[in-house]
């Protein structure tokens, strides 16, 4: 049995998870996530595939009744699995790194300030 590669918490992955955690029960489609994260499709779709493999997220074709009445092509919707949202929150918390930037800005060196 092949061992599953661990899910790396890259920055775009964290972004996607944050967007989806804004409403963990909702479903999201690819273009929506691309727009919300500002990352290109070449980044987002592989992330969705990884999240699906890890069992955090599941995807399904949208109910035909909806896209036909709205007159647009069928969407593929992604949503969290039962424990997906919780695992995503844990992973985000673990991936958190305090900022290396000092909280207080250094005093600006304005011309003529120092003798």
């Amino acid at each position, binding site marked *: 049995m092949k061992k599953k590669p661990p899910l790396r918490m890259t920055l775009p992955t964290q972004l996607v998870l944050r967007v989806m955690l804004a409403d963990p029960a909702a479903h999201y489609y690819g*273009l929506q996530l691309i727009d919300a994260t500002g990352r290109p499709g*070449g980044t987002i779709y592989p992330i969705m595939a990884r999240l699906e493999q890890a069992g955090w997220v599941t995807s399904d074709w949208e109910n035909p009744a909806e896209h036909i009445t709205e007159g647009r*092509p069928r969407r*593929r919707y992604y949503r969290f699995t039962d424990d997906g949202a919780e695992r995503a929150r844990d992973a985000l918390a673990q991936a958190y790194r305090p900022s290396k930037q000092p909280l207080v800005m250094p005093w600006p060196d304005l011309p003529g300030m120092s003798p």
Partner: protein
Amino acid sequence: MNHPSGPAGTDPVLAGLLAQIARHRPGADAQLITRAYRAAAYWHQGQRRKSGDPYLTHPVAVAAILAGLGADDQTLCAALLHDTVEDTPYPVTAMRQEFGAEVTGLVAAVTALDQVPAAQVSAACADQAAAIALAGDRRALMIKLADRLHNTRTIRYLPWATQVDKSRQTLAFMVPLARALGMDSIGAELESRAAATLKRRPGTAPGGLLAVAAALLPPEARARWRAEWLAELQVLPTRREQLRFAIQIVLGIGRLAVTLYQPAAAVRRAFGAVLTAATAASALVAGGWRAALALAATVLAVLAAVLWILHSHDRTQRLADLIRAVRRPR
């Protein structure tokens, strides 16, 4: 209100329109039509169609279509003026003084037809159309149909989503209406054009790129990703955005393939790079010259960017600038 006037012979567009009218109805009132033409030219001055043509080309084309059907003077005047009330500050009272109640009434009826909300324009609207035809002026509906015909002939300048919308509306509402009014030739042209627009795939180059990209995925996953991307592609409004979407998918296909194939860790890195290169190569073959051109442009852009960054004093700053420029604006 004074509109500049002069001899008809100086304006080739007007001369052409008058000739077309005279061919179908020799007794037409050329003077009245010339006045309507000048008023339309005056009020639409500076406005442009989505195609970039002067806006005046549209009312003139609509009037020419109607002239071909032998429409009367009032209908032709109203056709020339049909967008002035909605899209220009031409006061209705001034129009009534200059062209009379009949022409003004026709223009008002056409404008009112425009304001039927698109959501209502469905199969049920055939009845509504019949009601309007019975109650109101049949000539207003003729102008509306000629208007739609010219818009359909020039639909390629609109965003893709709008094209689909309008074409559906044309099939559901305008074609039955044309048949009901006995304008069979217009109905047939509207139907074939709208059907052709709906059948046309949204841009072959982006679609071809995506098909090539999907072909590199594991066989059991191909259909799903291709369908998902083509669906997203279709809702993007412009060709440029579609091409950009497709190129970005192609650039990320290595990562997706690695995820889906799950190769041994040692092979994983090289695999992604090789796949991206293979995509580029096969896009040349399967995607046709447009796809090849798009890829060549991308490669050149990347090369230019690399050179631009290397030949600068502050490389990190340049890199940051570049990333900011490439990111989609929010």
